[in-house]
């Protein structure tokens, strides 16, 4: 018999150690899998974790990769803290990108100071609207937000696919499913570092992502809104006693997390792609779930967690190029990471005790 008993007190060192131990175990298990698949484990780990950050411009690209993850995860933290399980950030990201794209494509001649804020607002509203569907269905009809938000992701994927092949396709695209390129005012510019110039793909969206995470941390720890979210997640009955409405909190956190995902979609397209196409996200909406949990649902830690996970992503690319490793292995690696984190979380909260099973006294009974 294996039984889990809750720990009375969780030491801070244990809490801090847990993600590190989980990452270490991921490395060990990952190395074993690479070995079994016939790759040199050390070379593979080198490609995963060292090669992608061996030059300054590569470090900059790491931040670029982490940018959407940090924005989305900062929003998801609110939902998960309130025990609302928004799994559909990927779909909300797509809708945000489309809403911002609608602004950029419909009014291409807007001046920069109007265009950028308008696209940011449109992006957030697009994601928020997509997040409102599971939120309202949950508060009105008590549907399961996990299922609805996840399924809406596939709706969003098909929706953008149809849009860029149909009504929004650039007539000059030679039949490719692409919208026209955004105007310059609708693009997020690269960062010019004094004395160095451009560094990799580093764009201003990265600064925005860091500010966004800080703002999320401030809201969660200092505002009455953050307090409502934490109380509702921790002790919903005490939340109702305090006068907070569970429905309002659900709508609020779905709005925040959906809006954040929409913003990430807008940033991703405006900074890196410049037009809408069927694939604008590489599963950022799903990967950000790992980031939020790796950060133990703390928006400041989301920055670090986002960088760690982005490193694993870039490392996957690097391993594919250098070692001809199949793409799915990267997915397996990310899966191991999430598995280890969740397991670590469980062992952090519970003691595990092993005991011999009670021998059933069945023999005597069957004789009778």
């Amino acid at each position: 018999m294996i039984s889990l008993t809750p720990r009375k007190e969780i030491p801070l060192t244990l809490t801090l150690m847990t993600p590190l131990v989980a990452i270490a175990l991921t490395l060990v298990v990952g190395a074993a899998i690479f070995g079994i698949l016939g790759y040199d484990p050390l070379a593979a780990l080198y490609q995963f974790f060292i090669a992608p950050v061996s030059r300054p411009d590569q470090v900059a690209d790491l931040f670029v990769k982490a940018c959407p993850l940090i924005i989305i995860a900062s929003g998801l933290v609110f939902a998960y803290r309130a025990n609302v399980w928004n799994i559909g950030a990927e779909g909300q990201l797509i809708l945000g990108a489309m809403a911002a794209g609608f602004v950029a494509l419909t009014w291409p001649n807007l001046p920069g100071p109007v265009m950028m804020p308008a696209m940011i607002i449109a992006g957030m509203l697009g994601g928020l609207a997509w997040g409102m569907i599971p939120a309202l269905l949950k508060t009105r009809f008590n549907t399961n937000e996990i299922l609805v938000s996840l399924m809406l992701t596939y709706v969003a994927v098909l929706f953008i696919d149809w849009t860029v092949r149909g009504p929004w396709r650039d007539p000059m695209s030679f039949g490719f499913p692409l919208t026209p390129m955004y105007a310059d005012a609708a693009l997020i510019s690269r960062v010019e570092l004094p004395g160095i110039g451009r560094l990799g793909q580093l764009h201003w969206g990265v600064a925005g992502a860091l500010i966004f995470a800080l703002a999320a941390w401030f809201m969660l720890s200092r505002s009455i809104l953050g307090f409502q979210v934490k109380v509702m997640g921790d002790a919903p009955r005490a939340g109702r006693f305090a006068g907070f409405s569970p429905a309002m909190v659900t709508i609020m956190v779905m709005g925040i997390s959906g809006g954040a995902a929409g913003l990430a979609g807008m940033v991703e397209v405006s900074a890196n792609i410049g037009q809408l196409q069927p694939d604008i996200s590489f599963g950022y909406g799903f990967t950000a779930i790992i980031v939020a949990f790796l950060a133990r649902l703390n928006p400041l830690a989301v920055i670090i967690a986002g960088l760690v996970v982005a490193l694993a992503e870039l490392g996957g690319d690097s391993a594919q190029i250098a070692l001809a490793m199949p793409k799915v292995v990267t997915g397996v690696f990310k899966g191991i990471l999430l598995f280890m984190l969740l397991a670590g979380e469980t062992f952090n909260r519970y003691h595990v005790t092993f005991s011999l099973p009670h021998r059933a006294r069945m023999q005597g009974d069957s004789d009778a």
Partner: protein
Amino acid sequence: MIATPRPSRNQSRSVLLNASGICKHFGDFTANDDVSFSIGEGEIHALLGENGAGKSTFVKMVYGLLQPDSGQIEWRGQPTVIRSPQHARELGIGMVFQHFSLFQALTVAENIALALPPGESLADLADRVRRMSAEYGIGVDPDARVHNLSVGQQQRVEIVRCLLQDPSLLIMDEPTSVLTPQETGQLFDVLRRFSEAGVAILFISHKLEEIRALTERATVLRRGRNVGTVDTAGQSSKQLAEMMVGDSVGDIAGQARPDGQTTALLEVASLVRPAGTAFATPLRQISFAARAGEVLGIAGIAGNGQDELMEALIGEWRGRDADVIRIDGVDITREGPSRRRQLGLGFVPEERNGHAAVPNMTLADNALLTSHSLGRVVTRGLVDADATRAMAAEVAGAFDVRLPQENPMASALSGGNLQKFVVGREISKRPRVFIVSQPTWGVDVGAALSIRTAILDLAASGSAVVMISQDLEEIFTISHRVAVLYDGALSEAMVTADVTPERLGLLMGGSAAAAGLAAEAQA
């Protein structure tokens, strides 16, 4: 004042169980420190102490659930190690726990059969139960299904289950906490008959009047130490309380009625609430008024609609009709808890953990829980952390909440301390109407006294207090008027001084007609 143990009147009886120098530690915590205890055959002996004084730890060692770290237990003069409850039962020690372990869907006889060694037919067992029941006047029907029995009857099933194993020592852990006064009286009659038949009874309680009514001797524990064994007949309740607390206990004087008819601050008119789930009690046409300067007690046994009523008063559940609940004439029926607090209501629900307070949050955050709508600690959506901290510290200081560290998690406080905090949190806002459920549930005597005093002070300052309580002693000590909640319906409010515990008990048991007769008979 500590009374020295006097020689018992029962020296002629031989000593059944003698424990000496018992110590038990849990980590750093000393639950029992050099506890000595002795009980004679057929004696009714109380083990008295506050919550956490070590009573349960001690009896668990006597019943073989725990092993002492040091010390010796003698059973009938022989040093004995009681290895397990099974072993204890073989020796002749039975125990009735505070929480019953009965299968609701089975009959009484089936439940009892499960606890006995196999081999006896159900019919024979039912016969034995019937005989024993008649012999001691227990009134247990072996064929009844447990879910149809009242709490008092279920307790008697547990007692019969112990008695069938022919014990010479019966341990009863807080047996009266769930009973009406009538049921308590019946239980005491049954226990006295056992005693006459030679069964010793170890009776755990913190209710002093009961101990004086039932037992011959009492052993008092305080913080794990034995502070003395006394003849209960020679002690007043106050003396016993002082032994328990180790401090002189203040007195709450009998409550004078507020002069004349003061204004009604809270009015409830025909509050109806359908049952939300199969386990909830619907509220049926509840009407009452709480007046300035009074404590209105709402008595009743758990599960008769207390939780549902409390939720409706807090505003966690809201009806659709207008003018059902009014404060100072303002209709608040459809207002939520925040708006009700702004209008001068304060609430303390029964459950501390997860309802009145969030265990995993600091006291400052828990102070914020009920003050965020009052406009002092939240400005432009931001929480003033210094203000909430100061508020929590102020409540802790004013209500003697002992803190293990500065601004601790609510879960780090003992039950009594957290209760003082949640009551103090509301009273310090001087609410016009204060609604509190079970204000001293699971709280030690000292804390209970300070909570009750604070409630009375609040009422004396002109507020109205509604106190839902299952503790009749509490109702009689501090309420000016009392109404009884039974099956979701509330009786007329009566002046507490004019009501007997018997009448209240009948109303709590649902016999409104009988209660009426009792009142006439008194007149």
